[in-house]
């Protein structure tokens, strides 16, 4: 158990009482979820600190990593996808196509290991360990991890935006806009892209779970604090309360992300507003 093989019976008894484990299971669950509603996830028996505090301390690092990754990936992926759909079958479209297919399923830990190898070990351009001190330091320490997490997403986003751009370009309302003499620039930006980003938003909203998975590896490899690193160390220590707390917070964030993507979609697409 938590205390290891050398724990005395008294010590075990004390710990069990402190953790509430001596009470019936149903009561434990009720107490746990009751406390959960009040934002209290119990106490970490290893350090004696509140689980909420430990998890909430780690959360901002992970959120910063995920947000930075997805922002840069979207900032490059959307224009790339849009551009290659307009310049269809040119070399830039082909290169984008091959690169996005290639990067999409390269696992994030492989990407992270190579970023460490190339940028930190060989070129020594960027730091690879820790989260950094001060605002500037934190930003610099975020670059490589965010790069490793975001690279496959550039491919994902570019691909889905390209595909939906091409589909929408073939729709009859685009032909109508052309028949009215609107410029191609106006058609792509105001008429097509707005619909074409919808699947990308859904993809990102549903992909936050994948981002968390990637964050686990990246935080371990770059020795960054964060939810992922917290869970891995807790699993190694068999610290159930921390694992449970971190998993619950992760779930909450994912639910929140889905909600946000639904709101963005409703804002972009009036047809979706009806059902809300």
């Amino acid at each position: 158990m938590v205390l290891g093989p050398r724990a005395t019976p008294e010590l075990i008894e004390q710990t069990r009482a402190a953790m509430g484990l001596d009470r019936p299971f149903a009561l434990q669950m009720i107490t746990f979820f009751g406390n959960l509603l009040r934002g209290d996830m119990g106490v970490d028996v290893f350090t004696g600190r509140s689980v909420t505090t430990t998890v909430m301390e780690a959360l901002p690092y992970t959120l910063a990593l995920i947000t930075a990754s997805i922002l840069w990936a979207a900032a490059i992926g959307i224009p790339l996808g849009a551009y290659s759909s307009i310049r269809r079958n040119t070399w830039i479209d082909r290169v984008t196509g091959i690169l996005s297919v290639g990067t999409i399923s390269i696992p994030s830990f492989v990407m992270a290991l190579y970023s460490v190898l190339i940028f930190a070990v060989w070129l020594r351009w960027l730091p690879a360990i820790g989260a950094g001190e001060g605002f500037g330091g934190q930003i610099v320490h975020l670059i490589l991890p965010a790069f490793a997490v975001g690279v496959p997403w550039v491919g994902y986003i570019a691909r889905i935006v390209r595909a939906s751009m091409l589909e929408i370009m073939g729709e009859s309302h685009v032909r109508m806009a052309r028949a009215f003499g609107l410029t191609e620039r106006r058609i792509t930006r105001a008429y097509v892209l707005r619909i074409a980003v919808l699947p990308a938003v859904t993809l990102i909203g549903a992909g936050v779970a994948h981002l968390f998975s990637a964050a686990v590896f990246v935080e371990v490899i770059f020795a960054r604090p964060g939810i992922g690193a917290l869970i891995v160390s807790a699993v190694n220590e068999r610290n159930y309360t921390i694992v449970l707390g971190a998993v619950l917070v992760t779930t909450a964030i994912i639910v929140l992300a889905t909600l946000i993507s639904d709101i963005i979609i409703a804002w972009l697409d009036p047809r979706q507003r009806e059902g809300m």
Partner: protein
Amino acid sequence: MGDVATTYKQPSALCIYARQLAQNPMGLMGAILVLIIVGIAVFGPWLAPYDPNQIMIGPRMGPPSAAHWLGTDHLGRDLLSRVIAGGRIAMLVAFVTLGAAMTVGLALGLIAGYGPKWLDNILLLVFDAIRSFPVIVFGLAVVTLIGPSLYTVILVVAITSIPIYARIVRTQTQTLRNAEFILAEKAMGAGTLRILAVHVLPNVLGPLLILASMDVPMVIATEAGLSFLGMGVRPPAPSWGTILNDGYNFIRNSPWPVIAGSAPIILVTIGFTFLGEALRDIFDPKLRRAQ
């Protein structure tokens, strides 16, 4: 209707698909890579130059040489032999889990798509709950409960993959369910089993197999990832993940173990993804957006 004469002889469908694949350079490259990797995994024990766990007399963390093509690791084991042995494990995990996930996913998807609405709602809720959860975090939670092993990895990947297949089968089944030809079958008095087996299944199976082929890298990455974190295949058994983990600890001393462990992952990824993409384009251009 084999006995009814046709006016002209058509080349067999398989022949056409093979030719189309050959005309697609990325697809062809993918197919060749996949063949090589599967071949190496199958014939691994005969191909590997050494026992993967045998500790060599000679340099540790050695760079590639004539004796050790990929170099040696921090204990002085031959990396090439370990990579080949790891490939067997990776392929085993991939085929077992995808086979299981596809079978269960197909069944659940057909039930959700063709069964009563309330059952569909319940199943969908379960699928989406599992799908929206990070695979690795779920894996770690399972490991805390039942401990790390090869079987844990298979269990985790199978459970997290089932909803993906089930959902695709469900969506397809639901579209088909309201298609006129299915209504026509119903009106002719065809039973549910006959409709599912003769009319729904053939239209669902193709996309499912293509998606599964594209999911092989995902499964392998999850296995390697959990093993990398020390939560999957137990050392000293070689997995691409454990090779990477060993290499990561000594990344500042030598890059070779990291490169040796990651190269096969990258090749598998590229091979199966390119092949899957090409197959998808050939069989069903409409599917391109479903992903």
